[in-house]
């Protein structure tokens, strides 16, 4: 102690830098004493234990309601699992059995039972399961508190943000802490999948976990710096280190503020080309984020979620409600609803038999065309919802013109049915396709005559063009968005669209990667769609480039023979424009 500028290294768990005073967080735990219980009191002791468990479950239920508003679904699921631990026969029944058998007080036995599980788990090879011990400790303390009333959480009431140092943080600790009062988290144990890491990333707070000696080396109130990118913690840093990190911190803050300030500005290049910047979403809850980031609409709403995690198919009414809500909230902007895009790799149900090669099997529009009744339920729901906002419909996995015609025929049939039944709908809903199969890319000029828009699905287009599965690590290096074949295909799709006076967008990883986004802009895309989180910095990128320059650059770049040459060719521009 006393030396300035000491360093502790841990595991980076949540990115960013924090400089502040340390706050050592621990539970005021007392040793659990063993007491013998006289035979005639055993019944009461068991009851006391059961009551404590009931109260703990009640607490968990209340806690779930309390945090439901500001924490994500994952945290809620953790508490729901804690409840399952309190209903676990190997915990509850075993404890009761042992209280009766050994005639010993409930807290001692319960503590022993849980610790037995903890030591059992700490020997597991798989770190994910090993890191669950924090969850069990959480449950243990919760029940012990009810039994003894002596163990309580240290009162956390801070007005100025601190960097929290703890041996380990349990889910309830983090829920109690909440937002705004903590600017960094450090724990002695844990890894990248531990609860602390997940929560820190959710709160957007830098964190270092697995720092082993943090609680013993760091004192309450000590000035520290944590670097959540590298996993380094500086204790009592010297002026030089402080200055270095202060300037990094200032940059970090300035960048965040700069991005925030851009949220309401248009995505327009220096020379005035306006790009539509939209969001990819899967769930209606993501719309808050979409609106906050100032997206120009939803470029890809994946409807698969409605069909997964259930045994039956979603009803027309259910889909109608969801689509209407999204359309209403995003209006007057557009929502592109992609019709069901599932394959045997994503769903194994009555719909699809197992396939040897699902990527080339019955998926996307193929599945829908082979189940026209199911497909029409979705189309009816979309058409009915279309009166509530600006909906566009997009068919996935189209591989050629006849497939498009079949899909359009079903769409027209659905329109006619609704018309006949006198149900209100918008029959002029724009129709488009995902261009993601090489055969569609090559025949784009024909397909463009039959639709109102294209959206290039780059993830699949890359995979099918190069014939490389990006999930397969042994060939992952082949999966390269800058492959000249991919870029030339994209260029010709964009040309085909524009020659036929329809607009063309890109949804997929290429839209949110700085190099490929530049090339796409240069090749002339009208719209880029990406995860809401990527919107702010892509907006900044668009606002800092010159379309005319990018145009020349991109058309030269795609003539080059390898992805490495293409990357090298664009890189100086990226540096020059600083994005």
């Amino acid at each position, binding site marked *: 102690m006393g030396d300035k500028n000491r360093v502790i290294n841990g595991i980076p768990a949540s990115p960013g830098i924090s400089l502040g005073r340390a706050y050592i967080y621990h539970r005021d735990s007392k040793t659990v004493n063993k007491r013998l219980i006289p035979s005639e009191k055993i019944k009461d002791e068991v009851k006391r234990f059961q009551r404590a468990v009931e109260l703990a479950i009640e607490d968990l239920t209340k806690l779930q309601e309390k945090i439901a508003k500001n924490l994500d679904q994952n945290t809620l*699921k*953790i508490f*729901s*699992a804690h409840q*399952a*631990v309190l*209903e*676990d*026969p*190997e*915990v509850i029944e075993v404890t009761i059995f042992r209280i009766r058998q050994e005639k010993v007080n409930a807290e001692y036995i319960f503590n022993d039972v849980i610790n037995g*599980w903890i030591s*059992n*788990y700490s020997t*597991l*090879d*798989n770190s*994910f*399961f090993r890191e*669950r011990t924090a*969850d*069990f400790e959480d449950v243990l303390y919760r029940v012990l508190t009810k039994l003894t009333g002596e163990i309580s959480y240290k009162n956390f009431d801070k007005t100025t943000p601190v960097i929290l140092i703890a041996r380990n943080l349990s889910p309830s600790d983090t829920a109690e802490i909440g937002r705004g009062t903590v600017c960094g988290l450090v724990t002695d144990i844990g890894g990248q999948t531990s609860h602390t890491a997940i929560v820190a990333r959710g709160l957007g707070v830098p964190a270092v976990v697995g720092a082993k000696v943090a609680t013993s080396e760091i004192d309450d109130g000590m000035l520290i710096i944590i670097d959540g990118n590298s996993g380094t913690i500086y204790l009592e840093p010297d002026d030089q280190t402080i200055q270095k990190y202060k300037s990094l911190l200032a940059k970090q803050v300035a960048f965040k503020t700069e991005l925030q300030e851009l949220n309401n500005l248009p995505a327009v290049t220096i020379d005035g080309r306006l790009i539509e910047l939209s969001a990819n979403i899967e769930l209606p809850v993501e719309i808050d984020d979409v609106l906050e980031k100032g997206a120009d609409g939803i470029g890809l709403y994946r409807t698969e979620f409605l069909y*997964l*995690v259930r045994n039956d198919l979603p009803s027309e009414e259910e889909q109608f409600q969801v689509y209407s809500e999204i359309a209403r909230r995003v209006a007057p902007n557009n929502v592109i609803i992609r019709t069901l895009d599932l394959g045997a790799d994503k769903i*194994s*149900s009555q719909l699809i038999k197992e396939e040897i090669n699902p990527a080339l099997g019955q998926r996307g529009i193929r599945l829908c065309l082979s189940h026209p009744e199911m497909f029409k339920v979705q189309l009816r729901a979309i058409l009915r919802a279309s009166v509530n906002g600006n909906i566009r419909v997009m068919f996935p996995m189209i591989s050629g013109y006849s497939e498009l015609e079949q899909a359009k025929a079903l769409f027209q049939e659905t329109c006619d049915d609704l018309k006949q039944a006198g149900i209100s709908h918008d029959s002029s809903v724009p129709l488009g396709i995902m261009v993601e199969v090489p055969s569609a890319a090559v025949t784009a000029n024909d397909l463009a005559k039959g639709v109102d828009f294209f959206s290039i699905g780059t993830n699949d287009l890359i995979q099918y063009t190069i014939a490389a599965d990006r999930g397969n690590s042994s060939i992952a290096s082949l999966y390269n968005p800058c492959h000249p074949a991919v870029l030339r295909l994209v260029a010709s799709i964009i040309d085909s669209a524009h020659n036929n006076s329809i607009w063309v967008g890109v949804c997929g990883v290429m839209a949110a990667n700085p190099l490929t986004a530049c090339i796409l802009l240069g090749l002339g895309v009208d719209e880029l769609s990406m995860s809401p989180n990527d919107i702010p910095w892509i907006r900044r990128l668009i606002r800092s480039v010159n379309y005319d320059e990018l145009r020349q650059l991109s058309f030269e770049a795609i003539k080059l023979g390898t992805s490495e040459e293409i990357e090298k060719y664009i890189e100086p521009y990226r540096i020059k424009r600083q994005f």
Partner: protein
Amino acid sequence: MVSKVVFVKNKNGLHMRPAEVLVRLTSQFDSEITLSKDDIRINGKSILGVMSLAAENGSAITIEVAGSDEENAMKLLIEMFSKDLEV
């Protein structure tokens, strides 16, 4: 008693959430349900037991069900394992 080998299809294995989904199903039956992986055998109604199998994606799990509602329990368990357990 009925018995059957199934495979974990979940990306992250039988971690906390899938284990919870599983025990919420097994707890509904009167039959005794045992799961085993390699040489570890656990009570299929215990979430701590299920997670202690540390079953990763692709692991083979043997299910044994014994009791009055064993047929029905086995049927629903097989169905559950045939899907992604992420609910």
